[in-house]
């Protein structure tokens, strides 16, 4: 396939610098520090977010809770 018709190659060429940001390993020590702090934060707030995610688990008795009040 000629380059001009290859969508993958075209996308690669069209990609501006800011969009080539995705990476799986840090670029520098400073970046490693930021990633470490993110990981620390993840551990730190686990208890906070756990409860909010638990609230999405719905027991069947709640689903059959009838809402009916008089006027």
């Amino acid at each position: 396939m000629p380059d001009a018709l290859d969508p993958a190659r075209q996308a690669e060429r069209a990609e501006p610098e800011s969009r080539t940001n995705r990476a799986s390993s840090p670029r520098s020590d400073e970046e490693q520090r930021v990633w470490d702090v993110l990981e620390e934060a993840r551990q730190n707030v686990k208890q906070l977010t756990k409860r909010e995610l638990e609230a999405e688990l719905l027991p069947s008795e709640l689903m059959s809770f009838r809402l009916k009040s008089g006027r």
Partner: protein
Amino acid sequence: MTIEPRGYEYPHQSIRVVPFPSEFDELFTEPTGLTEDVWPTAQINYLGFYLKRLGCRTVLIEGHYIDRDFIDDLALFYSRSLRGYPNHCQRLHFFTEDFDESRWRSVVAEANHNQHETSTQFLQRAYLGFCVIRPLPGSLIGRTVLQTFPRDSAEGHRRDFGATREYRVHLAGFELGVRGLAFQQQDQGVSACATTSLWSAIHKVALMEGLPFATPAAITQAASRYFLAGGRALPSEGLTIDQICEAIRSSGLAPIVVRGLALDQARAQLHGYLTSGLPAVLALQPLPLTRSEGHAVCAVGLKLGAIAPQTDPQYHFRDTASAVMAVYVHDDRLGPYAVADLQSYTLPKGEIVPSLVIRWPGESAVFETSVLRAIAVPVPTKLRLTVARMRSLGIIIADAVGRLLPDLERKVDVSCRYRLSTEYQRIAFGFTLTDNGIFDLLNSTVLSRYLGEIQLVGPAGPLFDVLLDATETQANPSVLCCVSRAGLAASGRPIVASIARRLGATVVA
């Protein structure tokens, strides 16, 4: 002798103008017989009270009005009653301006002499909204759309009515507008509290998605099609949360249901959905808890104070949702925009749960206290990422930013909401992005129709936004990009770039 002719005549239209009465119930006639309720009803008293606070001076009474919701209720239920219910309603329009019948005639006459725009402006400036009066003796208050109170209160708090919408109103050749969310009283024939609450919520979300508005009759029918656990569909015996979900699905939307577990959690959920413009049906269990059945209201807005300072030294951010003091609810036992304070309540076994304390506007007396059991939100079907999942990522990022930028003194405020990508693109022009940045955002960044938006704000303003693909179920890896904002100092930019790389996203600056 001939048979008495019936059905040959058309009903009569008449528009009358009356001053807003000192007692609102003077406009109504008490139903005959010994009714179940006291007269005037709480809804009539509440509307009078609310309109007085809005500064209503004049009521224009449209004697003949066909209401889509009522005519559907009539077709499904009331047409089979012995009593001959008419198919039309009356409609009241409320104005802050003093005017009488002769002024109304001159407004019409002026419009007839090339002054239509001027006449419309006169009416629009004073327009507070409308209330459909149904021919149902015990449940007069039909579709009602009234203005909300202004954003800033005299007491210093803010009101956020993001879940309201614009309604266009046609009155005698004039087109007027009012921003609010439709309210109606349950009639106990076709609808109970859950139906009317869901009907209000769908009024907003259906408009966002270009879907037809489900009437109360359609909601009750859809809810009881597959989930009629007991009793009968009509007269309505209320809905279970399962039935509410079924009615939401049949309206072309998707239900998100979360439990009410704790005050902070409930605040966060309500803040996320309501600031995104998504009304929520709240499943309440009124006190005392010996009652097995609950009550439903529709949350429409938020009463906001200051964001609470972070008191736990373990954390390095503040939660914007901590500013939520109360929710404004459509409670069909009262009326639209009733204030419900969000508080904690301790159950007999010691468990602390969120509760709602509903009050009359401007009064300290409590109308009712209830435990908040669940929040059900009708959302567009492609909106799959929940607020809880968005927050689970947002709080990590906020805590990390608070650690990485100590100059902010832990004043990193995190909020999560949904936003249409088209709206985000439009407001991004005000972000002071570089020309390359805005071009990159608008030309090179693929965005879902609804974005999950995590916003981080510092003392100098917004720091950066994290945009999520709301069609995904997990917040990460669904980050589309991080957008730098004006409150981010130059020294913080490499940090945001590193965070974005860790999230697998791009940076727009």
